[in-house]
C-alpha cells in the first residue's frame, strides 16, 4: 500500500514526540489501544490553568505509520485549542487530512480516543484538585 505524502511526512518528521510528567499540574494523559491489536497511543496535553488553552502536546505511539501520523497530527491540532474545542476533533478530520485508506481508519479512531482520554484525564485531575481544595 502506498502512503500519502502527509503520512510519510509525519512518519519521517513526527511532531511533538515525547512525554510530560504525568503528575505535572495541567497535564492530561490518554493511553489507548492494546499491544495485541498492534496499536498503542499515549497522548498528553498541557493546559494553561488560567486560560484553559492547551499550550503543548506530546505523543508516543506503537503502531503502523498511519497510527504514528494520526497521533502526530493530533498533537499539532491540539496546540492552541481550548478543552472544548479539542473535544470537537473527529477521526474523520484526521482521515481527510492524511488521506487514510479504509483499512487505516482504525488509526484515526484510536487518535480520537486518545484525545478524549487525555481530556478526560485532565478534567478528572482538575475536579480532584478543586474538591481537594474545597474540603480544606
Amino acid at each position: 500500500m502506498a502512503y500519502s505524502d502527509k503520512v510519510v511526512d509525519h512518519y519521517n518528521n513526527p511532531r511533538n514526540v515525547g512525554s510530560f510528567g504525568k503528575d505535572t499540574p495541567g497535564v492530561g494523559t490518554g493511553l489507548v489501544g492494546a499491544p495485541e491489536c498492534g496499536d498503542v497511543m499515549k497522548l498528553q496535553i498541557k493546559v494553561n490553568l488560567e486560560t484553559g488553552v492547551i499550550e503543548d502536546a506530546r505523543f508516543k505511539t506503537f503502531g503502523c505509520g498511519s497510527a504514528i501520523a494520526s497521533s502526530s497530527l493530533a498533537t499539532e491540532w491540539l496546540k492552541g485549542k481550548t478543552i472544548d474545542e479539542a473535544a470537537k476533533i473527529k477521526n474523520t478530520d484526521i482521515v481527510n487530512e492524511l488521506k487514510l485508506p479504509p483499512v487505516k481508519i482504525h488509526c484515526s479512531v484510536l487518535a480520537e480516543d486518545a484525545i478524549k482520554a487525555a481530556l478526560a484525564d485532565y478534567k478528572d485531575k482538575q475536579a480532584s484538585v478543586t474538591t481537594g481544595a474545597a474540603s480544606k
Partner: protein
Amino acid sequence: MGLKFPIFMDAQSTTACDPRVVEAMLPYFTEKFGHPASRNHPFGWEAEGAVDAARGKIAALIGARDPKELVFTSGGTEAINLALKGVAEMYKEKGTHLVTTVIEQRASMDTFKRLERQGVSVTYVPVQADGLVDVEEIRKAITDKTILISVMFANNEIGTIQDIPAIARIAKEKGIIFHTDATQAVGKIPIDVEAMGIDLLSCTAHLLYGPKGVGALYVRRKGPRVRIAPMIDGGGHERGMRSGTLPVPLIVGFGKAAEIAKADMAAEGARLAKLRDRLQDLILSSVEEAFLNGRPDRRLPHNLNISFAYVEGESVLMGLNKETALSSGSACTSSTLEPSYVIAALGASAELAHSSIRFSLHRFTTAEEVEYVGQRTIEVIKRLREMSPLYELAKEGVDIKAIKWKAE
C-alpha cells in the same frame, strides 16, 4: 562495488528471473511457439520436446522417478488447491478427514476452510515454540477417516524445515496419502520424493529464479499410485489432471531454473547461510529484546525472521522501504489486519506477532547489502523505540502484560 537501491531482501515472496532463465525462454515466445499437444507437425513436436526436457529437469531436482509424475499448474497456489481438493474429492468414499498444521501458508489454509464448509473435517496440529511440528502429534491426530496428511516442507515466514521423512513414514504406515507444500524449499535444500516418501508435492517456479505463472504438482505413480480429481476440465492435458494449453515458455524457464538450482544448490545455500548468519549476528548483537523466530538449526539458508519488542512491524518496514524491500508478518501489511498467525502459533505474545520482520536473501544478495540492511534496521528500530509508549513503560519498569488494555 557500490550499492544499488532499492535493495531486495524479500526473496520468499518472489525472486527475479535468472538471466539464463530468460534467455532459455525467449525463443519459445516467437519462432518456437508450437502447441505441445499438436501431434502432427514439427511445431508441436518441438514444443513437446521442450516441455519434456523441462519436466525431466524438475523431476531430477526433486528426485522423481518419472517426469510424467509432474503436473504443470499456474503456480504453487493452484498446485496446492489441486492436491488438497483433488484428494478430498477422489477419496471421499474412503474418508473425509485431513490432517495439517497451524502454520501452513494461506493457499493451504483457505483451501482447507473451503473443504470444511463442504463437510470435510480438518485437524490443525500445533507447532512447538521453535516452529517444528511434533511428529507424534501428527500421529495422534489421525483417525480411521483420515485420507490425507499435508505438512509444508519449510515455512514461508520463519523458514523452519519440518521432519518430512518422519511424517511421511507415519502416513505410509497408516496407508494415508502425504502431501507437502514445498514451494519455499524446492531448489533451496535437497529434496528427494522417493527417499523421503512424499506422495504429492507442490512447487512454484518464481521462488527459484524462474518465471511467475507456472508451478507443478508432483503426483506419485507407483507405491502407491495416487489419484486426484481434476479441478479444470478440458482437453485432458497433463494426464487428465489439469487441462489447458501448456505455457511452453514458462515451463522452459521453470526447467532451466530447476537445472541451475540443482547444480548450484550446495554452494549457493552455504553462501546465503553465511550472509544470513552475519545479518542475524549484526542485528541481535546491537538490539536488545530482539527475538529470533524459528528453530535456528532447521531453517532455510536464506531466511531470517526476528521480532523486535515494542515496535510494530509495518512501521519498521516504512522506515526502510525507500531503500530496502523486506516483509513483515504484522497486521497492517496485509489486508487482514491480523498479526502473523505463524508467529502467534509459536506461543509468542500477540505484541511480538505484530513485530516480526522477515529478511529473505537470494542469489544476487551481496555482503555489502547485508551490512547496509543490518545497520539501517538497527537505526530504525532505535528511532521507533524512542517513539514507543511500550518501550517507555518497559524502561520505567512497568509490566506491560499487567496493564488492563482496552482492546478494540
